[in-house]
């Protein structure tokens, strides 16, 4: 009977339940904010915090897409290359045809890459790691071929302002990229937590054979996952290019991809799939971006920063292993 009485107030207990996985990174974030506030007078200013949020928006979008792939026990290594491709396609089209066709063509190019990933993984059953590793190279190369290896400058006048608005503009007090990231995060949360296909993603990550036996269309679900991951990467690429108002063939070639995967793991989503979610990823992104921002303000070199971010990824995975082991 205890079971029955619990169900009568299930809604309340459901909304009050704190995900135990967020405690570790949550405390880390709070501790970090406290230390930085004391250590640097420039940290706790409206200007700086706004900056951090604007900078974190593209990473948040990438990592949210990446969360889909990790939840099913996969990985999307092609995200960084998609950012580069979208950047040069958007800029190239804008020179001749203006902002609207450029936005459509640019983002579509990234979406197509995601769908190809999805078909290779879902229909041809090739390992996600191998497919997206191959795609990482192919698309990075394609971005360089399209742009001839150099930055695409000289975007036409009214269009380039709209372009920048997406990457660095404001709606009232709110930075545009942050608004877009928040909308995408909400959509992603709804899809994962409240739709059958979202549940299917968790089921595949938990035990793919069980999902097959239960009648889940595993192939279609995987195509959807990589479509989402590619689309989110394409939108992030569009916003990042808008910020630098040019087409950069190496825009996503840096550590953007690794930050995206790292943020998901720091947030506590299991790399084996089946457990996690986008709010954990949000926390992971905040940890990464505040960490980097604070270290910048304290004038600690980017070389040292890399050492610290890497250590945090391992530390958070270790904390997760501890938590699971204690159950």
């Amino acid at each position: 009977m205890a079971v029955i009485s619990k169900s009568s107030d299930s809604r309340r207990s459901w909304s009050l339940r704190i995900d135990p996985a967020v405690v570790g990174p949550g405390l880390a974030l709070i501790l970090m904010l406290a230390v930085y506030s004391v250590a640097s007078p420039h940290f706790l200013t409206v200007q700086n915090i706004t900056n951090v949020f604007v900078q974190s928006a593209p990473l948040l979008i990438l990592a949210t897409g990446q969360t889909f792939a990790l939840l099913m026990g996969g990985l999307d290594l092609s995200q960084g290359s998609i950012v580069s491709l979208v950047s040069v396609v958007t800029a190239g089209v804008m020179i001749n045809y203006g902002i609207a066709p450029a936005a459509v063509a640019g983002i579509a190019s990234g979406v197509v890459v995601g769908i190809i990933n999805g078909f290779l993984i879902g229909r041809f059953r090739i390992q996600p790691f191998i497919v997206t590793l191959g795609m990482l190279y192919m698309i990075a190369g394609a971005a360089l071929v399209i742009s001839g290896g150099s930055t695409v400058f000289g975007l036409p006048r009214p269009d380039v302002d709209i372009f920048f608005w997406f990457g660095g503009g404001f709606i009232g007090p709110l930075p545009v990229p942050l608004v877009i990231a928040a909308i995408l995060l909400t959509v992603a949360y709804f899809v994962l937590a409240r739709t059958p296909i979202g549940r299917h993603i968790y089921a595949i990550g938990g035990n793919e054979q069980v999902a097959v036996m239960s009648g889940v269309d595993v192939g279609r679900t995987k195509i959807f996952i990589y479509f989402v991951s590619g689309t989110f990467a394409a939108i992030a690429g569009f916003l990042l290019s808008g910020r630098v108002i040019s087409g950069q063939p190496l825009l996503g070639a840096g550590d953007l991809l690794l930050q995206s995967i790292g943020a998901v793991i720091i947030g506590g989503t299991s790399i084996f799939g089946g457990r996690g979610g986008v709010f954990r990823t949000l926390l992971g992104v905040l940890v990464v971006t505040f960490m980097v921002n604070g270290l910048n303000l304290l004038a600690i070199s980017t070389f040292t920063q890399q050492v610290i971010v890497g250590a945090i990824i391992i530390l958070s995975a270790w904390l997760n292993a501890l938590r699971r082991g204690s159950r």
Partner: protein
Amino acid sequence: MTAVATVPANRFGIAPDEVLSVRGLRKTFPGVVALGGVDFSLHRGEVHALLGANGAGKSTLIKIVAGLYQCDSGEIRLNGAPVAFGSTAEAARAGISVIYQDFALVPDLSVAENIFLGSEKTAKFGLIDRRATHAEARRLLDLVGAPFPTTTFVSELGSGQRQLVEIAKALRSEAKILILDEPTASLSHAESERLFALVRHLAASGVGIVYVSHRLEEIAPLVQWVTVLRDGLSAGTFPAESLDRSKIIALITGDERHSGRYARETSALDAPAFEVNRLTRTGEFEDVTFTVRRGEIVVITGLVGAGRTEFLETVFGLRHAECGEIRLAGKAIAPRTPREAIAAGLALIPEDRRGQGISVVMPVYENIALPILHRFVSRFGLAIRQEIAHAEGLISRLNIRMPDARTPAGALSGGNQQKVVLAKWLSTDATVLLFDEPTQGVDVAAKYEIYGLIDRLAAQGRAILIVSSDLEEVLALGDRALAMRAGRIVAEFDSLTISANRIVEAITHG
């Protein structure tokens, strides 16, 4: 229960040959008291049966003794000295070997490599001594009566053969205590007999053996002592000769409700719901032809490897028939995936519960809702409260024991997991239900509950096809029974002609 002999007073006294002594062992999991203060005693050279229903605490007790779990309170003594194992490796070093129900073998390593995994035989410079490894593995395989070469990959072995490797692995070190958890669940009759001989041999050489089984008929000739657990407490330890089948069942269930044989009312109607005609996959099964009517229960029996599981998987779209046809309510179907089979009105309750039946990381309610998620879609997405309510209805109907519908399914005991798999398929609109060994590894009480459920499903007009190796089950459940041998249906029995002897005759000699 008064007729049952009580424990001799000296048994819990200090005995020089007592190898394992457990006193007041207590272990709780969130929401569940798994063990509420259990005593258990094992002596040199004895075979001691540990019995109990699902969730009675057998697995928990074994896992604590083996160092996999740590107890909350209580004491374990090994040869009189108190011990507290922090890991399975420590327990193994102390001479405790366990053969678990779920196989713990690496498919992509050879038999010999699996046997010595974790304690590899090394030569100079810490390199693996291949010759010694294979020679010693050969000796162990001969001991358990396994004919296959030590170089065979485990992935090539059937489940009965894997069980033999598992036993050989447990024997690699000089075990003082050997714990066998449902060792014959996937063994053929001949393999089981060989295992019993081996168990007797080991006991005669001084090893203390704990034997967990749901097959009560095995217990009597093999064991000297029987300890029954019920609801995390010991219901007593008894000399085996003082117990008979009905007494054991009464001790396990706590009453005498299930002592009689299960009797079902036949409710077959005439319309054929499910037909297969000359269905063939060369090397697995050939020319399989039969019909199941609405409301009828048909059981396919046979030895392990007779092609029964392969047949079910073909019907369910996991494999594809080379020729022949499948008809559902008169309409030919050829499912290419389980998804298509489900859409046509089929459901398969698989043999491999943890591999195919439930996702252990998912909450119970999500497992149950997985095939019917579309029913819970409202305007604001999945109605999770309805999903939980749906699951809770089934949980109380099937008497599944768990703290909460949000519990991960992996935290439940084997029998309760099987009921979750049943609950999952009960809510679908399937007209034909396929069961593969529905009560394997399930205790007596849950077994009869599952029989009752299957019977009710048939009474609703669904067609039921069961694959079972359990003769008692075949006799108890089947309106008709088909005997399968080497991929072919070799005999058919109806309620007038069915008998255990005839079935054994058919599946072994044809």
